[in-house]
């Protein structure tokens, strides 16, 4: 059966809204681009490389992440970690998400009873 394009669009949009939150949540410990990509994929949050890398860069520009280049390995890697600003923001954003998630859940449960 062919996938409904409207549905898949909406699902993509739904996930995209939470992307920043997912990324920030995984950066309490330093990660580089590809390791974060794999980490998220392992936790059932697959994200496209061409979305993640630019997102990391933008979050750095917004000073939510700080970065360091690790040149000790054969290949240089840029490690990102939450800045103080990012940590504070993550906690607020997480709270907001929880609240919203509960409200949406309540709405859906309500419909289920009918």
């Amino acid at each position, binding site marked *: 059966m062919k996938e409904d394009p409207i549905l898949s669009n909406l699902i993509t949009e739904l996930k995209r809204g939470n992307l920043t939150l997912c990324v920030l949540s995984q950066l309490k410990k330093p990660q580089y681009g*590809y390791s974060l990509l794999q980490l998220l994929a392992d936790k059932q949050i697959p994200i496209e*490389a061409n979305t993640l*890398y*630019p997102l990391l860069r933008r979050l750095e520009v917004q000073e939510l992440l700080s970065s360091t280049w690790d040149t000790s390995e054969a*290949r240089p890697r840029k490690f990102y970690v939450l800045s103080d600003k990012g940590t504070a923001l993550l906690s607020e954003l997480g709270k907001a998400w929880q609240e919203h998630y509960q409200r949406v859940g309540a709405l859906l449960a309500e419909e289920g009873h009918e």
Partner: protein
Amino acid sequence: MSDLIGRYVEETVRHLSLKERAEVAKELEANIQDMIGGDDSEQHVEQVLLDMGSPSVLAKQYRGKERYLIGPETFDFYWMVLKLVCLVVGIVTVVITLISLFFTESPVGIGTMIAKPIASLFSALSGAFLWVTITFAIMDYYQVNATLESWDAKALHDLEEAPTRLIKKSDSIADLVGLSVFFLLLAVLFNRPELIALYRKDAAPVPLFIGQALRPYVIGWMATVILSFIVSALKWFKGKWTSTLFVLSASVDLLGIIYFIFVATRWKLYNPAFLTIFPGSMTRWQIIIKAASVVLLILTLIGNGDDAYTVFRRTRPDEAGPARQR
């Protein structure tokens, strides 16, 4: 195979600002190398780069925002200004071109009379479009905030104005266009009064007017059209009836029709040769003109009455205060 990666990275950062390029390139290349891992066969590298998507799309992600000449926030304002500027520039150009055509030494043919205003209109409008667009593009580039209007309590209450008192933009524009065309016809009439004539197969055309006598009247007529034009432009600009605007509008309408009747009843302007052919005699022609004058006057009064009804009907309750009645 690193050449392929290098070219991909280069193509991506080319779309970014200068200060970002080196950093993004270095990082992107490292990430791609990580994704490729140990298997650096051409096939695998190709696959990884294909999965990354096109460089221009990736670059857009890095920029984090779309690039516009005129952004969506400014577009409405841009469009409004563009229309207004084009209208004003267009009108002024046509009027000036026509006026300059009248005062040329040599007689001007009907072809030039039509072609020249169109040509200058085209070049003026192109210029207006160019400069308005460039101005807005620069404003957009430097993120100058030019939103159409603020949204506050005052703006909300302005919305509540009786909708019947609004003047439709399309009506005003139709008026402006109609008046321009009429002005153009008057210009032709001034220049070549003999063109309004009875054309017959086997004889010379018989003009309706005695040209030399008609000319001064046409100039006066054009003046009334210019006045109407100014008032119509004002109506377009305000978009809403006010008492003053109504008085102005009614005055120019009446002035126009009275002037028309005044000119039409100057019997000396007509060519007797024409009248003997068409209505038969001067007396019959006078009856036709007088009847037409009465009909036109009545139509004008009806139009003004309609406007007056629109303007004054809703005015009183609106001024009653905050407790508006709808």
